[in-house]
């Protein structure tokens, strides 16, 4: 059981450690800067599912790099959000980092919006999330978003326990072109193959999954 790549293993360990703390930000300062966020995203960072309206995502417990990138992308326009734009504009570069770190450290809260889901939708949603529908080349969510759809690093956010309304809004945003900020367009390619039934089913199923 000799190790051929000891230096490599060392680099990997380093990489893992640095990835976990890649974003430099101050959670305390972030909490202050986040005062502008709480009316929608709530003091606990849990957001709110709004049936028939635009839902506010849970931020609590999401990856800091992911949150920071979204703020930057909204500012830059590759992720269009008229609602977020005025608030993002109030944050400077360091405050965006601080806010991202702050929310990443809050305990994850439960997702809403899947309470009334039909058994048929839940079964279809689970299939899409865990096995996919390869006949239509819809690969399973968890192949990138990770085991339990709990998120992978700064590129693939946690979906389990996110609000159904928000997940559905984002999938539609990719389809209609208002969200264009995913790495290699890995999400775009899948989202544009999904129909309304897929979107409803998978967002409801994911919202009901444990966020931890």
């Amino acid at each position, binding site marked *: 059981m000799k190790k*051929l790549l000891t230096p490599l293993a060392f680099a990997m360990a380093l*990489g893992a450690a640095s990835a976990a703390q890649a974003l430099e930000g101050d959670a305390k300062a972030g909490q202050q800067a986040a005062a502008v966020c709480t009316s929608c995203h709530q003091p606990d960072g849990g957001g709110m599912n709004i049936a028939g309206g635009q839902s506010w995502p849970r931020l609590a417990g999401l990856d800091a790099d992911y949150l920071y990138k979204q703020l930057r992308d909204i500012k830059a326009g590759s992720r269009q959000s008229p609602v977020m734009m005025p608030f993002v504009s109030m944050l400077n570069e360091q405050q965006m980092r601080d806010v991202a770190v702050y929310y990443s450290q809050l305990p994850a809260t439960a997702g809403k919006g899947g309470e009334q889901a039909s058994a048929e939708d839940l079964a279809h949603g689970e299939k899409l999330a865990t096995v996919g529908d*390869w006949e239509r*080349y819809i690969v399973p969510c968890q192949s*990138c978003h990770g085991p339990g759809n709990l998120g*992978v690093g700064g590129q693939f956010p946690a979906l389990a326990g996110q609000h159904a309304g928000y997940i559905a809004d984002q999938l539609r945003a990719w389809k209609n072109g208002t969200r264009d900020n995913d790495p290699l367009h890995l999400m775009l390619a899948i989202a544009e193959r999904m129909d309304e039934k897929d979107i409803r089913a998978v967002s409801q199923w994911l919202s009901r999954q444990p966020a931890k």
Partner: protein
Amino acid sequence: MNIPFVKLSAAIAVGLLSLNATAADVRFPVDMPKPKEGQLVHVPPTMDDLEKSQLHPELKRVIRRGHDLFMNTQQLRGKNVFNNMNCSSCHMGEGRLPFAGPVWPAAVTLPDFRPKNNHVNNLEERIAGCFSYSMNGTPPAYGSDDMLALSAYHQWLAKGVEMYPSAPIYGRGYPKLNDPQQKPDYKRGKQVYEAKCSLCHSNDGSGLVQNGKVVFPAVWGDNSYNWGAGIARTFTLAAFVKHNMPLGQRGTLSDQEAWDVAYYIDTQERPQDPRYTGNVKETRAKYDATFHKATNYGLTVNGKLLGDHDNTGSKPFLKPEALKPRTFTAE
């Protein structure tokens, strides 16, 4: 459910050929190649079909176990699997998808002579090959519960296909690409890798393990496939990549990019070929005609002789017992 394409029924065509749908407003159309006339097209049954079938409940249980092992082979980690691979890492879409190493053809074309080990192999021995090379491990024992479950899952997927079909099979394995216009190149391959692959498989090829669970498989290094794996051959990896990567975006790389990135990945170090004699050049020569002529094993690339080590990765042995010649001297 299998019918040569000339007789392909409308109902079957819908599922498979809908992948060719190219709506004008879609930015990533799924350009699945169309079957050629005379090819055998088979749409394997699903796990839902299994539940609805009339098979014996105990057989259903065994096939379900086979499916579970196929999708999550890491549950055999340290026992049969010694790297970060699942069967489904290479055989995508539950082993059902054409151009992605669909596994049902093995159930209808074996037993057959296999040049790689120079004797007639049955389905279990073929699966044992995957464990020995691609999973850098050792197979579940022939006739064991796990081997039975895996082979039963393969056979279930082949339901309805004639044995030893004479028609060529649509999307079998990873259909070969045309020869590259330019010789595959390490530097160009590295550029493709860093632009299109490293996001998931990481710059050092190690993939990603999170909370002890494999998320993205390692494509080289200690936890990847060994030098004897089919996909260590540049042409096999090039075809796999072209037809299946980046995930969800099949067919988006040019053939040249696929060749280049395959060359880049398959000139990185990985665990020793289990057939290693103790001398890499001798091992290469011994299996050159049937295998290594298509790999970079035992060649010097960028000043380094590849495979010149006795590292077996995370596996505490070199050669699994299952890898042995068959003399077939029945009297």
